[in-house]
């Protein structure tokens, strides 16, 4: 096989591996990213990006990120982008007359960027900026006349600065080294060209800042949002960006040391380094515990309650946010009282997380409040999550929730505003059209399986939200809608998780309106425990229908000596309320 085809085969395999990783191992990171932006097909939206250096890269990045809604499409986009970067680096290297045997090393920048993209806060716009720069360098390297090349650099400096931000300096850096190596121009000519280029490169961003850009100078220089937090740009970004220029020159110099252009050993050696290095890098960059939380959250967002429970059955979730999603799924499937202690529980942080001023926790906590019927709180959490986005984006998921909650509250004019925005998106347009049609008819809203129900559940009497009094709020909510089973189960879960059996016993009779066929298992366990521990003489029968299985298990539990972490306890009783009561702090 000829080497030119081998390098293409390498690119293809590299792309397929990237695709496989993001499509099958890391898909929920892509879903997570998609929800924290809202790409609008509108002139104003484009203008808002065009007004800032690097904004065009961010705009292009956002355009592609909208397709992350389907993670396999996102995986294709990332794979193609990383392959394009690798091919551009290889093309530039070849233009520098690097030997074809070095093609595997051209994947280094792409490989490193892949590592960055494992972090949900690294945005596609950064990679797009790098592709623009690589494209300009490629074009530059094709030009044969030195004068045209120099002119091209001058023209490119403002254009590329506006498209890709400070990464435009790579072109200047490349061109400077390239011209020195080529020696096609006189030293004096080259010096003048370089000085003018340097002045232009310094003056344009500085002038833009002083004349009209209201951003810190550092941000003006960086331009593109590589990272979701524009004030922090990790050094790794700088290393990768510079590697796009360094690698071609490094390969050029390395080529001087080898005679043969077809050393199979050298190729194999490089491939081993790339594969092992890549494995090390990606396995250390990927955060599978976050991926798990994102999977729970995505399924929660998509109302795939059965999938959440199935995930938990495979591996019990342990982080508060994934437990929050699981508990909501159990409640939606009427299983919270029955099975909540089948899984890891640790206080009400995994039931109704406290508000935090960020964009992740309120979004997930807001799902709980929404399905409970705390419509205003769900609305507030969605709004706050969106406003907390450090890159000033709007969130399609939050806008949907704002539209929904306003429909439920009967604020149709505001809902319509949000729906009009969603009509300008690619994926949410259809949903928005349906919502607008539903909104025109009160009967349709009443019949809507979610909005109609939540309208019944939402509070009719005003009270103030109180983070420290969730139990009280749940009580008020349930008191007003005695069919709101989720509110009741959350109320009971609150008392169980805080080990407040007094209130559990006080609230339990409220379950009458819910017509349970049998008392859920956790409630039986709590009731039986409370009864046995308060009626030690055993003179009276328990007034609740407790199954014999529960009674027998409790008797065995009481007799069993040992520590919480002993295998026998864990195996036999970790799914009981008693185990939680005694051993979970």
């Amino acid at each position, binding site marked *: 096989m000829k080497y030119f085809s081998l390098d293409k085969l390498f690119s293809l395999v590299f792309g397929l591996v990237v695709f496989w990783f993001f499509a099958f191992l890391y898909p929920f990171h892509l879903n997570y990213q998609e929800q924290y932006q809202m790409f609008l097909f*509108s002139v*104003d939206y484009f203008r808002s990006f065009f007004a800032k250096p690097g904004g065009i890269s961010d705009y292009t990045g956002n355009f592609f990120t909208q397709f992350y809604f389907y993670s396999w499409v996102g995986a294709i986009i990332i794979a193609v982008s990383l392959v394009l970067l690798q091919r551009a680096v290889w093309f530039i290297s070849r233009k520098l007359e690097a030997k074809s045997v070095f093609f595997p090393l051209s994947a280094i920048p792409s490989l490193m960027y892949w590592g960055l993209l494992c972090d949900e806060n690294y945005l596609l716009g950064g990679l797009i900026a790098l592709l623009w720069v690589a494209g300009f360098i490629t074009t530059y390297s094709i030009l044969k006349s030195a004068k045209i090349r120099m002119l091209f650099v001058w023209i490119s400096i403002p254009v590329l600065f506006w498209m890709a931000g400070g990464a435009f300096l790579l072109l200047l850096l490349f061109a400077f080294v390239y011209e020195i190596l080529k020696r096609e121009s006189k030293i004096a000519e080259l010096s003048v060209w370089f000085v003018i280029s340097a002045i232009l490169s310094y003056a344009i961003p500085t002038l833009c*800042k*002083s004349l009209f850009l*209201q*951003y*810190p100078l550092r*941000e003006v220089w960086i331009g593109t949002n590589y990272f979701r937090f*524009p*004030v922090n740009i990790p050094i790794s970004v700088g290393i990768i960006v510079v590697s796009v220029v360094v690698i071609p020159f490094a390969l050029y110099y390395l080529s001087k040391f080898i005679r043969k252009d077809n050393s199979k050993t050298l190729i194999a050696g490089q491939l081993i380094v790339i594969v092992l290095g890549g494995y090390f890098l990606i396995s250390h960059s990927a955060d599978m515990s976050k991926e798990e939380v994102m999977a729970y959250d995505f399924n929660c967002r998509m109302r795939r309650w059965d999938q959440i429970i199935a995930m938990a059955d495979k591996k019990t979730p342990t982080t508060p946010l994934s437990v929050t999603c699981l508990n909501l799924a159990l409640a939606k499937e009427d299983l919270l009282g029955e099975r909540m202690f089948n899984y890891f529980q640790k206080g009400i942080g995994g039931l109704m997380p406290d508000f935090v*001023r960020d964009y992740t926790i309120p979004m997930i906590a807001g799902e709980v409040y929404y399905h409970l019927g*705390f*419509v*205003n*709180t769900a*609305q*507030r959490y969605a*709004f*706050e999550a*969106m*406003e*907390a*986005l*450090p890159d*000033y984006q*709007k969130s399609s998921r939050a806008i949907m929730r704002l539209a929904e909650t306003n429909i*439920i*509250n*009967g*604020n149709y*004019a*505001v809902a*319509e*505003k949000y729906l*009009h*925005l969603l009509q300008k998106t690619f994926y949410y347009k259809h949903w928005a059209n349906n919502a607008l049609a539903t909104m025109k008819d009160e009967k349709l809203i009443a019949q809507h399986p979610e909005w109609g129900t939540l309208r019944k559940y*939402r*509070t*009719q*009497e*005003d*009270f*103030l*939200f109180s983070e420290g009094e969730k139990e009280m*709020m749940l009580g008020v909510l349930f008191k007003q809608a005695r069919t709101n089973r989720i509110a009741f189960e959350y109320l009971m879960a609150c008392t169980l998780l805080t080990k407040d059996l007094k209130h559990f016993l006080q609230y339990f009779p409220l379950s009458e309106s819910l017509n349970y066929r049998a008392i859920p298992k956790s409630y039986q366990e709590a009731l039986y425990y409370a009864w046995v521990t308060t009626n030690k003489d055993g003179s009276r029968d328990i007034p609740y229908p407790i199954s014999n299985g529960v009674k027998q298990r409790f008797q065995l539990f009481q007799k069993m000596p040992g520590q919480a972490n002993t295998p026998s306890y864990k195996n036999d009783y970790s799914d009981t309320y008693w185990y939680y009561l005694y051993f979970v702090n």
Partner: protein
Amino acid sequence: MSKISIFHLVFFLGVLVGCGGKVNPGDVSKEKPKLFPDYVDVTIPSTIAPLNFKAQGDYSAIDAVFEGKAGKSIRVQDSKEICIPASDWSELLEATKGDSLKVTVSVKQHDRWKQYASFRIHVSETPIDYGLVYRLIAPGYEVYSKMGIYQRNLSTFDQSPVVENTLIPGSCVNCHSFKLTDPKNMNFHVRGKKGGTILITDGKMNALMTKTDKTMSNFVYPFWHPSGNYLAYSVNNTHQVFHEEKGKRVEVGDVASDVVVYDVKKNEALGTKLLMQDSIFETFPSFSPDGKSLYFCRAAHKKMPDKYNEVRYNLCRIAFNPENGSFGDKIDTLFNATAINKSVTFPRPSPDGKYIMFTLVDYGNFSIWHKEADLYLLDLKTGQTRCIDEVNSDNTESYHSWSSNSRWFVFSSRRIDGLYTRPFIAYLDENGKARKPFLLPQANTDYYDQLLYSFNIPEFVSGKVEVDPNQVDQLLDSGIKKVTFKQ
């Protein structure tokens, strides 16, 4: 060829292509059209930007004829909205000053033209100031994203940033105010780790650290003394709570608040016990046009947030001596809102000294979140107060500001969708009667629908505001002055 001729040529070509000749209404309605924005029978200044609009409902084309004095007219037709050529509009308004435009709107529905009854747009001879300055901020709760203070030329659609919070990441910019409408004398706050009060006096900028050991907070709500030598500020310890009932969202209130006066020349906050009482909430100060009275809102202290809905502010006055910065020794109540179980916010005296306009709510002081909030006018000559029904709506009317000649006022209202605050401008005639207000016109009629920001604190300015954001940044970095306190 003049601009008008070119326009007419383009128009007639458009008509020929789109409508097969001319508009010939098949149906003539007795009803006036329902437009967005609602410009039917409004009163406008002659220098206002074109009042572009669209009709409500479905149609395939819309046609509008604007007829002014001396036979001047404009005709515009489009498939979606009426966008009036700026130069034609300007000439038409200039020619029609003191009179009114007759506007005839027709829409094409199911291939038939329907003509609505004509309406009037009154063109006042009374001038309006150069522009507006407002903050654009999402109507959120505790967290904020990108926001800024912007200026808008009222004669065009040009909007430009004065200062944006992107300048200092994580910051908030708020509470801009001007000495009357003078753009060279301005104040605003930057909140955050790198924060301070920016004070521009006669074009010279200073950054102030306004928290003193005798005041509970940084300076908050500002108002300039007409001399420019003083600014009155409230200092507030504010908290927020959130409603669960569908008609309400947020409640913002003070746990404690006082009023102080800042002496610009001495860099000193002046206080009096009368305005710093623990048993009283004092807030929203404003100076009378002669500079000898300080108006403010005053409420009996209540335990917050438990009794948030029992806090009611009266409109009060205390004498102020601008010669030496001293205060009077008694407080007068100008409007006893507690007597009618209501609460006053934002007292704003008209520059001619005739009126005080304020917002009246059921309780508390954060009227923007109160649907019942309405504008009221206190006639200082007669002492009579009346609800300005001419401009109020079923929804929130809150912040308001006077033009320099006291004949126009701008106010924020949530009447369009119940949440996003929009600026409306109204004319007040010589008898104190307001005319129907109009929404600040925009080039694109979908502008407000697409905008996820509220217009906050709209203030008139008599010229373009020149603030160097880089200087703001530098001063907050290294040039901040600490304010001292004197009682």
